[in-house]
Every structure is written in structure tokens, then in C-alpha cells.
């Protein structure tokens, strides 16, 4: 991972070597820091400030005379790049949650509904799985399921960046619980509204959801980007000209970046933030000067090898527990029936075994990682 403090040193050298005044050096540093705090990558940030300095030299003016206040210049640059050069912003796709904006949810919901509807349609092809007669519920429930799926992802991701993993999981559980109730209400209200037979309703519904997703996507492209959210990416936060360049902003972004990485315990995130701020204070430098871009620094730190396998074990364990309950419920239901739905039983048992196997595998990884970490610490 690149050390972004080297870009600052390069920029300072260049400005000094070309005979700029101390005021210009301060301008350059301030502008550069503001770009970093708007999640611009350090290389393009350094390059743009350098070009601003070159232009000032060429016109024999100071940077402030030519470009105005560094905050105003930086904010304008960020807004321009959000429209024209989004690739200059930080994107750590491998380890960050995609977040949903209103714009992307507009087409995301019908797209997920189309997928669910297609699965429902496949179920109807398997003998004994589909309903005897199609009801309105089968048409609407995919949409009712799609909304909480998007909402769950959005709530988890948004809570994760601000409050950490534990609170994000708690918020997600609340969303799941409330959504389950809503879906049940929709299903119960519509399951008795039967549709005429002989028409492939479920396939028509799948097509309709797909068409809706395509139309919604086209409409979404015509909605101007707000700059505050990017489609399926990190939430973009523009550091405005009025805001100071201070450690609090840097620390908030650093904390959010560490939470989004999901490779440290929540308590270790707080410690990493505290360690960085303490170091910056002792060095009498701003945190952004000492550590560079908060997002790049967050990705440069070593991960705790135990965190990922532990969380995966808990997640797959929860799913295994859920399928255990579903399988047991079916066994109990089947006791009083003449005909036991074999295929459905096999399906539930299969899902249970799948998640049980995944849990055991993750637990082994967890144990191995914990052992390695203990040996490493013992030294």
C-alpha cells in the first residue's frame, strides 16, 4: 500500500524548489489536505495542486491571487471531479460495502424483485412445489422481499461506518424482524386473491419486474448526481470551504474507513484512532499531515487475522440455526400429515447441512488464526 505522506513531501519539495513563498507553501498544503479529506486519491490531489502552483508561477501571481482561498479552490475542484473524473476518488472495492443511494435503490429494488420472481417461477416448475392456483401474493411478495433486502444492506452499511460492526448487526436484525412481519402481512393479505388459471402469471410478473428495473435504471441516469452519494460506492463527503482542516474530520473518516474494512474489532478501531491522534498531537502536526489520506492509511494498517473468520463463523452459525428451526418446524408439521413433502424436506435438510459445514469450516479457520496470533504475541 502506497505511503501517501510521500506525496506531501514531494509536493512541498516542488513548491519550495520553485521559489514559492511561505504563503504559497501554506496554500498548497491546505489545498492538498482538503482534497484528501474529500476522499481524493493522493496522487491526483498532489498533481492538481502542483499544476495550480505552475499556473501561478506562469502568471507571476501568488496562489491565492490566482486561485482564491484554498478551501474554495479545493471544493470547486472536488465538485468538478465528481462530475467529470470520479476515478480520482478513493475506491477500495474489495473491502468496502457498497452503499445504496436513493438513485440506485430506484432500480435496485425492481431488479432484486425480478430475481426473486424468477426463483419463484422456477419453484412452480418443480412438481409439488408451486401453488395449485396462482395468487396475487406470488406476484407481489418478490417486491415486498426486495425492499428489505436493499434496506438491510443500506442500514448495515450506513450504521457500520458510523457506529461499528456490533451496532450495524443490531440494526440489521431489527430491519430483518420488522421486514419479516411486513412480508407476512402482505402475503396473508394477498394469498387468497386468486388469479384466473391458464395464464403464466408468475412469468408475466417476472417480465414486468424486469421491465420496471430497466425503465427505472434509465430514469435514474437522468437524475443529476447529488455529489453526496455515488451509485454503489462509498458515500462521498465533500469537505466544504467553511470547514476547518482539523483532526476531528480526519479521525471521523479514519474510523469510518476502518469500520468499513471489517478487519479489526470495534474496540481496536477506537484504539487505532486514539493512537494516531496521540501521535499527531505529540508531533505537533495535523493528523492529515502526519498520516495522509485517512482512507489510504486505514487500508495500510495490518488486519487482525482473527476477526474475519470469527465473524464468518457467527454469521454462518446464525444461518445454520435458522435452517435448523425451519427443518424442525417442518418435521413437526409433517407428523400429523398423511403425505410428507419429501422434496421440501430434502431441500431444508440440505440447506441446514450446507450452513453447518460452512460454520465448521469457518470455526476451524478461526481457531487456526487465533492460535497463530497467540504464538505471534508470545514471541
Amino acid at each position, binding site marked *: 500500500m502506497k505511503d501517501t505522506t510521500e506525496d506531501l513531501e514531494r509536493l512541498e519539495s516542488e513548491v519550495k524548489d520553485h521559489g514559492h513563498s511561505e504563503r504559497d507553501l501554506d496554500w498548497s498544503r491546505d489545498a492538498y489536505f482538503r482534497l484528501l479529506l474529500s476522499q481524493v486519491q493522493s496522487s491526483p490531489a498532489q498533481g492538481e495542486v502542483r499544476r495550480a502552483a505552475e499556473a501561478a508561477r506562469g502568471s507571476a501571481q501568488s496562489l491565492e491571487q490566482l486561485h482564491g482561498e484554498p478551501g474554495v479552490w479545493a471544493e470547486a475542484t472536488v465538485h468538478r471531479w465528481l462530475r467529470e473524473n470520479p476515478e480520482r476518488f478513493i475506491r477500495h472495492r474489495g473491502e468496502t460495502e457498497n452503499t445504496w443511494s436513493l438513485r440506485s435503490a430506484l432500480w435496485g429494488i425492481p431488479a432484486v424483485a425480478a430475481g426473486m420472481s424468477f426463483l419463484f417461477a422456477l419453484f412452480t416448475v418443480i412438481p409439488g412445489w408451486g401453488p395449485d392456483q396462482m395468487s396475487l401474493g406470488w406476484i407481489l411478495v418478490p417486491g415486498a422481499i426486495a425492499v428489505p433486502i436493499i434496506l438491510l444492506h443500506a442500514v448495515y452499511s450506513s450504521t457500520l461506518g458510523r457506529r461499528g460492526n456490533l451496532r450495524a448487526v443490531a440494526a440489521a436484525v431489527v430491519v430483518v424482524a420488522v421486514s419479516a412481519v411486513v412480508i407476512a402481512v402482505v402475503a396473508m393479505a394477498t394469498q387468497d386473491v386468486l388469479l384466473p388459471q391458464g395464464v403464466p402469471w408468475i412469468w408475466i410478473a417476472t417480465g414486468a419486474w424486469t421491465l420496471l428495473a430497466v425503465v427505472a435504471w434509465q430514469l435514474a441516469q437522468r437524475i443529476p448526481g447529488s455529489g453526496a452519494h455515488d451509485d454503489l460506492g462509498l458515500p462521498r463527503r465533500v469537505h466544504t470551504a467553511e470547514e476547518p482542516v482539523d483532526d476531528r474530520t480526519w479521525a471521523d473518516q479514519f474510523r469510518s474507513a476502518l469500520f468499513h474494512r471489517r478487519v479489526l474489532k470495534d*474496540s481496536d478501531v477506537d484504539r487505532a484512532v486514539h493512537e494516531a491522534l496521540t501521535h499527531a498531537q505529540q508531533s505537533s502536526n495535523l493528523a492529515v499531515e502526519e498520516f495522509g489520506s485517512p482512507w489510504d492509511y486505514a487500508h*495500510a494498517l495490518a488486519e487482525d487475522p482473527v476477526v474475519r473468520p470469527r465473524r464468518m463463523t457467527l454469521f454462518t452459525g446464525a444461518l445454520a440455526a435458522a435452517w435448523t428451526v425451519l427443518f424442525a418446524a417442518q418435521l413437526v408439521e409433517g407428523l400429523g400429515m398423511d403425505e410428507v413433502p419429501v422434496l421440501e424436506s430434502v431441500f431444508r435438510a440440505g440447506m441446514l447441512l450446507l450452513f453447518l459445514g460452512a460454520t465448521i469450516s469457518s470455526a476451524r479457520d478461526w481457531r487456526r488464526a487465533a492460535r497463530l496470533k497467540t504464538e*505471534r504475541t508470545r514471541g
Partner: protein
Amino acid sequence: MGSAAGQQWPAAWSRTALPTAILAVLRGGPRHGYRLATELEGRGFGRPRGGSLYPLLGRLEEDGLIASTWEPGQTGPGRRTYRLTAQGTAQLAQERAQWAALVTALTADAATEHDDGPVTTGAQGEGP
């Protein structure tokens, strides 16, 4: 490593030798990050910025050469200190030997060999 009071090593040397320098400083006992940075500065390596230092400390810890512990503070999360492990001590000894060999190779008089003549050292007719 010997003392280098007032000496500032070239940046390229400092970057290459920094991991070894960190192990050498920790040989003197556990340190927290900022104190480590100031001691490295005192040894002529410049004070590494936090953005360079802590990721490097993380890599050394992943390699098992150093270990870190959090010391509880009166307020807040406390302070993390870094210490050398047994593996780190062995690695330091090995790297110091390698650096010493490098210095020997650099400071020995150059021996040149030409296709058309014997090996010569320094100016002809003069001793080492």
C-alpha cells in the same frame, strides 16, 4: 548500529534500513510509536511520519519480529507499546551481520581485473 549524533543519512538508505533500525531501537526496550520515531530521528533516519511508521510496525508484527501490547491509560484506550520478540532479536543479529559485511565490501580498496593484465590494486607501485 553505532550512534550517529547530528548525522542525517540519505533518504534512500534510511528507507532501506528502517526496518532494521526499528529492531535495533527496540533492542533497548519496549517503546510506543512516537518515542520510536524520535529515537530513529536521533539515529539519523529522520523522523518517519506516522503514515509510514505504523504500517511498517504492523508488517514487522505480522512477521513475528515484534509484538505489541496495549497499556491501560488513566483515560481513553491507553497506549500501545512495541517490543522485540525472540525471533526479532535473531533477525536483528542476522541483519546487523549482513550490514557489517556490506560496509566491509564497500570500504575495501577496489580490486580491478583487466583482460590484458594482472589484478592491480590502487596506483601501480604503491602499497595499500
